[in-house]
């Protein structure tokens, strides 16, 4: 007798419609995850419609209105140049989400290539790739990105490339590990024994399965990535043009003025935390739905 007897759908099973339906049902029943999803959808909508819903021009300077506390006209107050913080937060979310999303995609792409290479390139390639990921992982997250940016220079694309690269080793290892365990799983052995062609096993059966943990990890990493991007902005590596609204850059000023004007941190900070919390809720929910082992 063990708990595993009755818990359904081991992770190594071939995906099927009913499996995904079960996963989806579990996810739907997970209230926090759903709350995260709803919140995320709202944020994305807000980002997309920022040009319409933002009450002010995010770049419009109005020195007479500097450092206003939150009030009816400026819900999150204004900054030292009298710009409306809410508008800047809304516009900034476009940048954050875009950079975060593409950085994760880019990380997935590199990770996917390296991971597959490790598995099918033979022992030497595998060893080299694994040591390479070890090396990349040894540079603590944001530091690797700092290095790459001071190399490539500042800017949107550079930021995306830098942060994505620092994610790559995580995805590489994950993909390699799950492909490896799939390769030895009963269901792949069974497919092989009945003579299903290698390529079909790989593309139709193994990759879709290996994607599962990758999706969960990518979702969870999206939160971290948004934080890293803002962190780099906070360190002064954000957009070169200071007028462009960017969360991390906005927070530099907030942190310096925290003694007198805490609202500079509160507005952008709360939005940032809210996004990351919802992404993480969704990611946790996905993980639980896909792998119900670690639950009550």
């Amino acid at each position: 007798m063990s708990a595993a007897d009755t818990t359904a759908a081991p992770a190594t099973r071939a995906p099927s419609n009913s499996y995904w339906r079960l996963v989806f049902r579990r996810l739907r029943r997970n209230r926090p995850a759903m709350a995260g999803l709803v919140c995320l959808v709202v944020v994305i909508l807000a980002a997309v419609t920022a040009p319409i819903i933002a009450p002010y021009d995010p770049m419009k300077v109005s020195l007479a209105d500097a450092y206003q506390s939150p009030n009816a006209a400026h819900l999150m107050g204004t900054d030292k140049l009298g710009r409306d913080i809410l508008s800047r937060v809304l516009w900034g979310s476009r940048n954050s989400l875009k950079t975060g999303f593409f950085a994760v995609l880019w990380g997935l792409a590199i990770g996917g290539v390296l991971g597959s290479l490790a598995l099918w390139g033979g022992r030497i390639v595998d060893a080299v790739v694994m040591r390479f990921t070890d090396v990349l992982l040894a540079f603590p997250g944001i530091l690797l990105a700092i290095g790459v940016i001071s190399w490539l220079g500042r800017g949107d694309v550079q930021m995306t490339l830098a942060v994505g690269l620092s994610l790559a080793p995580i995805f590489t290892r994950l993909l390699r590990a799950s492909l490896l365990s799939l390769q030895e799983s009963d269901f792949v052995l069974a497919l092989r024994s009945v003579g299903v062609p290698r390529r079909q096993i790989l593309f139709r059966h193994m990759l879709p399965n290996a994607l599962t943990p990758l999706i969960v990890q990518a979702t969870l990493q999206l939160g971290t990535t948004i934080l890293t991007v803002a962190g780099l902005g906070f360190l002064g590596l954000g957009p070169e043009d200071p007028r462009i609204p960017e969360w991390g850059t906005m927070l530099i000023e907030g942190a310096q003025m925290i003694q007198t004007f805490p609202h500079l941190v509160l507005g952008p900070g709360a939005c940032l935390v809210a996004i990351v919390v919802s992404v993480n809720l969704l990611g946790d929910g996905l993980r639980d739905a896909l792998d119900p082992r670690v639950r009550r």
Partner: protein
Amino acid sequence: MPRYILRRLLVSIPVLFGVTLIAFAFVRLLPGDPAVTILGERATPAAIERLRTSLGLDRPIWQQYAEYMSNLLQGDLGNSTITAAPVTKELFSRFPATLELSICALLIGVTAGLWLGRAAARRPGGGTDGGLTLLSLLGISIPIFVLGPLLQYVFGVVLDWLPTSGRINPRLFVSTPTGFLLWDTASQGEWGAFRDVVAHLVLPSVTLSMMPMAMVARMTRSSVIEVQREDYVRTARAKGVVPPRIARRHVMRNAWLPVVTVIGLQVGALLAGTVITETVFGWNGVGSLVVNAINQRDYFVVQSAILVFAVIFIVVNLLVDISYALLDPRISYR
């Protein structure tokens, strides 16, 4: 066991090698003429020529690397392009501050994380569990540059309990032979200064500890829940072993294993976190050194600091793996 440790050591050698290679490439492969990029457009041609020769840019790349390595092994990391001081010296003077902060944060994070994780695992799905899960979710979602200023505002401004910046009140004159202020003040019996140092440490180390605390709590919780269901725990109950011993010797002893790995990985996050924490709290450590260096394009300082962080990370994880083997008798036989 010794064989396992040896093998593990051998694996880290190529990684260390790779790390130096990347640090090396970071400066030598700068786009354009590295010497110009490093010194900036306005540098005199003579200065640029001097740097070119000292970097050996006219020689083949492998010779440059060999020289870089040999300098590195002698403790020569080059000179700051801003202050012209040796980078090694600068790093050494800043290092104790960062270490003191990191160690405090790690201790707080791990202790609190373990405690919270075990509390949550006691009744999975219960109220405590729900609350703590939410708390740790917040912990991994709130960035240092938001949490730090908020704590500064609440405890430094509103309540006015704690200092918000620096390591020690500058009006206190204490000699600091080691640079570890806790040690320096305590060993000289300067208890007033010691208390001041502790007060300065509280906010930054709590801020920095948030991430490791949340990660350790999450891992402890799920690990304890999983181990609680293991057959050998049932065996222990069947033998009539008393619950406190089951919790300690059977559950925690096994639940530790994945937690130890997480702690090792969190050291990386912690080191990266010092960069921002030190900026927020005006902490004169390696982290704030790096930030200044980035803004001033002081490449040798950036290069060396990153290298040092990476090496620390590798060494810590080596230690973690070794302690893992000590904790799990199955490892050394694999």
